[in-house]
């Protein structure tokens, strides 16, 4: 009974994820894409709950649905779009890209179904303890490195978008050891 209910919930999530995902790729308006992406993430959080990974699900909601979506929306805001005909939303290589993606997807999905015998077991009592122990014991060093990565990304992002103040003199041309021949 519970299995059946789980199956139904799983089916709903699946439809939502695949549908919204397709929507992200196919939607005409960028804002729509962004909102559909947030929706996909939300459903993905549901999937995590189904798998018994409540902590991950919580992170998913916080980081993806919250932070990243907001960031993307900022990006959309800063790059005003001119509405254009639908066909122009695709790159010149679209046929190639679509065929390639489909070709690559096929075997993977086939392989995915080869796991049909395996079951997933949700750990009793949630995953928070296990996750915490893993992160702060065995993976303590990578975790610290990850924080450095975040810091670097932050600095990089700031440097990239920072405008040169208009008062600054123009950058000196590259010096040469002697005048060009």
């Amino acid at each position: 009974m519970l299995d059946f209910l789980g199956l139904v919930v799983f089916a709903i999530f699946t439809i939502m994820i695949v549908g919204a995902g397709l929507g992200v790729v196919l939607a005409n308006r960028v804002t729509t894409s962004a909102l559909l992406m947030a929706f996909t993430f939300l459903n993905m959080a549901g999937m995590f709950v189904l798998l018994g990974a409540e902590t991950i699900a919580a992170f998913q909601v916080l980081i993806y649905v919250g932070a990243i979506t907001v960031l993307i929306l900022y990006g959309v805001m800063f790059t005003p779009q001119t509405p254009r005909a639908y066909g122009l939303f695709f790159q010149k290589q679209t046929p190639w890209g679509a065929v390639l993606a489909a070709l690559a997807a096929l075997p993977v999905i086939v392989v995915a179904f080869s796991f049909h015998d395996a079951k997933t077991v949700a750990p009793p009592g949630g995953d928070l303890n296990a996750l915490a122990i893993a992160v702060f014991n065995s993976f303590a060093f990578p975790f610290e490195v990850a924080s450095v990565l975040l810091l670097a990304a932050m600095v990089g992002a700031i440097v990239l978008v920072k405008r040169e103040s208009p008062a600054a003199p123009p950058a000196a041309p590259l010096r040469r050891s002697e005048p060009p021949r």
Partner: protein
Amino acid sequence: MSVDVVGLVWLVPGIPLAAAIVNGLFGRRWLHRTTGVIASVALGLSAALGLAIFFAVLASGGQPRVVTLYEWIGVGDFRVDTAALVDPLSATMVAVVAGISFLIHIFSIGYMEHDRGIHRFFTWLPLFVFFMLTLVLADNYLLMFVGWEGVGLCSYLLIGFWFEKPAPYTAANKAFWMNRIGDWGFTIGTILTFLTFGSLNFHEVFDKVAGVAQTQPLTITFIALAFFLGATGKSAQLPLYSWLPDAMEGPTPVSALIHAATMVTAGVYLVARSTPIFADAGSALVVVGIVGAVTALFAATIALVQVDIKRVLAYSTVSQLGYMFLACGVGAPIAAIFHLATHAFFKALLFLGSGSVIHATEEQDMRRMGGLRRKMPITYWTFLLAGGALAAIPPLAGFWSKDEIVGAAFTSGHQILWSVGIGTGLLTAFYTTRMIYLTFHGEPRDHHLYDHAHESPPVMTVPLMLLAAGAVLAGLVLGFPPDAGFIHRFLAGVVSAEAGQQPEAPNYVLIAVLAAVAVVAALIGIGIGYAMYARRRPDPAAVSRAAGPIYTLLVNKYFVDELYDHRIIDGGRALFGAAWAFDAHIIDGIVDRLAWLTALIGSGLRRVQTGVVGNYALSIAAGLLVLIVVYGGYATGMLHR
């Protein structure tokens, strides 16, 4: 108490080296003309010590002694020491070299007085003496090679002494290069000697020669020929002789010392020193004799028609060196050394005499001289004595030694070589007479030149007189009676082909007959010369017209220089140019083509880089697909390793 003079033997070359270093370091800035005094004093000390060693060796009965300084090179079984071998042969050479060098240094003080390069001159001249003494003192072939190349270097430097003019430096290069060809032979000979005998030490080699000759006669012949090639280069024999006449571009004392008395005799010394090898070398010895005889005749014919006084002497030197090799070739190395010693005196004297003339007249062309005997009596008389010695007039020095060589050729059964020797003697007498008449006798042909001529200062004439004494007496002192004189007894143990055997008693009747023939030939030569140049019957110009093409051939020195310059040098240049073109166009061309090809491929592949991000993403996806297919293929077993 007695001082161990022989133990001090390294001072003999050491003192000149010290003088050379002092003059070289301080001469230009501070010493200037004092360099001449320093060098002469050093040479005086060196010569005195050399003589002392000579007498010490004489007193000890000719016992050889090795004075080792230090181990020079020792690698594996190869070992060479810086060591001197003091035996009668080297002691004789040391005495001759140091003594004559001393006199010539003194002469040079006067001769070079006004030259602004005097400090260079008195750096290189003692340096030369150092190398020459190293050459004769060395107790092994490699150390000898040091001296051998060192004298070549000094010869190069001194020939090119006036290097601002093209003729001297061209001659200097020619001398060095031709010597290098000879040195190639010397190097090969040295290495083959080591490989055959396991040592380069003279004594160790000579002890084994007889044994090796039994088993490897061909090797010995090769070694002898290789060394002889070296000797032809240094001693200006065919075919490597043509540098010596050109070497007269150097200052005249240099010609006297290096290109007459000492360095050019190094080849003779080498052959004489290696007598045991050459004695067992079979056909190589014949080659030595023939080359010597042919060179003697060949050079004498050229000397007949030269007008430059120094060039006459140069060809005469080549010719006399030919005699010495002839002696070695017919198995009379002692005669060769004897002639080497007497020749050193009279040829040095002739050169210094000509130097005195050149110093007085600043002219080398004999056609513009004449009658100088009235202006320069001392020079004239000493020159005359030396000329007589060269023409082998008894009892002057040259007679004894040359007669012995020619006699040895006859008694050893080489009648053809003997007749060549007699014929060359005739020619020698003729050109000597011609030279003396043109220079000193007759009427002055250039009055301006004649009026300015003057006798040289005592610093130059005193050495002339001392050398003249040598030119007169050396033959008698060293080599009388013939074949059993002082030098024969002194050197017998060292350079005789049959070391240790008692020489047979000389056949004095035969010797007297042969000597008479030689003297008659010389007198005929003098007579013809006197007739042509004093009486003008027949007139020399008429004779040369009559001789026609032969005269042209002789004046142009058989066109050998032309042959060397135009065939060998030009051919070499063409070859080297071709090698360079090959390098630049083929080898480097391939390299550049490769680079060009890479660039071409690169510019083709450049189109792939569209700059559109999407295309890159697409290729990433394509790569992903390939990975999936390959990995999946392996995983599912559809592909096999």
